[in-house]
């Protein structure tokens, strides 16, 4: 369950970063006037690390099983 949540959050945060960056490029200030994109980037990176951690754990388990 946690794995799914982390994965879904990773996808949506990646999408958010892409869309918000594009919006900022077209209309400078439209997003950063509301919140700091750096925090979103940190959240995305933390989520990505967690997901990578879970994936590597699964990969290790699969290797052991085989």
């Amino acid at each position, binding site marked *: 369950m946690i794995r799914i949540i982390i994965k879904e*959050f990773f996808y949506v945060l990646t999408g958010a970063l892409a869309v918000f960056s594009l919006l900022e490029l077209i209309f400078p200030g439209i997003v950063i*006037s509301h919140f700091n994109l750096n925090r979103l980037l940190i959240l995305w990176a933390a989520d990505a690390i967690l997901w990578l951690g879970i994936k590597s754990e699964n990969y290790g388990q699969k290797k052991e099983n085989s």
Partner: protein
Amino acid sequence: MKLRISLWTLLGLAVFYFIFYAVSPFGKTVYESDFSSAGMIGKLTPEERREAGAYGGWRMIGDPLYFSIRTFRGFDRAAVELEYENKSEKPIIEIGVLADKTVWRYQLKPAENAVIDRLASKWTALRKGSLLLLQKRKEYESIDDFIANPPELSRIALYDTELNSEFTIGNYAPSASKTEIGRPLRGNYEFYVYLKNEPLDFEFSFFDLNQNKDPDPVEINLYYRDQPIDSVRVEDDGIAEDGGISSAPRKISLKAASLPEGVYKIEFKTGNDVITEKIISNQKRISFRGPLWLTEDNENFEIRTDSSAISVNAVHPAGRQVVKFGTAELDVDETYRQFNLSAIGDTIGFERGGVILSGDGVFSFDRESFFDPEAKKIDSNFNSDSVDFILANYRSPEEANGGFKTARAEFELKQAYREDGAYGFIISAPGLKVEDGTEDYIIIKSVRVEFYGRSLWAKIKSMIDNRL
């Protein structure tokens, strides 16, 4: 699957909100900031005039402070709310929006005027909307009555309002000879001229120092009752170098006939590279409003004024001198520092130019041409003994929590200057200085700005109407 739909819906809503906020389809948007970080409302600048407050907010330690507000579209009107605490002795705090970048003119509105607040409790006060009339002795029953039958201008002080009372000079007769002002002036300036049964005729001789690369067109605007009625313009000399090679002298004339009797204002608008060498006119009554940049070529001269307080800033090493104002003396011993003097006198004596002069009255270069058509203004040097009435467009700030006050000012933005999508704002507290060594300051806690403009529907409708 539900989680995925929820998260992507949230992202979609966020994008919609950002776009909705930027477009402001209903024609209204609100920005708020405590100036802690730069968002749509920029930081307070310059840094040397502010300090971080002990419990949040910023301490304004020098006048003025600036901030900008970036908007994604233009608006017609802005209502600014400033939350602050005045920990200084300075009685006046004003908020303004940049109206003209060439001359750095701000449209200023009152935030707090302690002089009016103090007199409102002593004099008879009448209020109509935001207009406030204070009478030393009650002579008028209503503000309408006062506006319809105003007393002599010399008995009135105005604050952020105009009175439709015509200034006239008794026994005035046009001059048969020309008036020549031969004191070189640098950059922008403006002056009043009085006309009666005579054509307006001015000739300005000027040249471009070419010390910077910016073009320096000259624009001369003529105003009557604060409305522009005529304008002439000459383009830059065409030298786009900053080599300091002065252009050849040039001339520009402003002429107008059949003008009604009254006071006219002339604005000479240009860059700081332009020196006006000479002004020749048929008119004999000419008085300048400060600031006046008197170039270093001026030597041993006097200026007539009715100011009670003057400021002198030496912008050239030659400008360091002892300035005489009435019987008082002002030792201007440092460049690029504003020196102030309050004194009783009608003449300011300079050894040399190289200074920027300003004051709370008007200035003229000879006694015969002096006249002051302005009603007295309420500033930090205001003397309530000199007037019997005060008419002000002013509301006192409201008390907020923790000793703070909230002041509100409204601005028309159609005349405001907007660059790169940003409006420029100013917070001014005249007399508040960093270098005076006193521990006085104003805590700026936050600002809230409501912008009002056309709705998206109104804009689409006007576009359709224009096409048809």
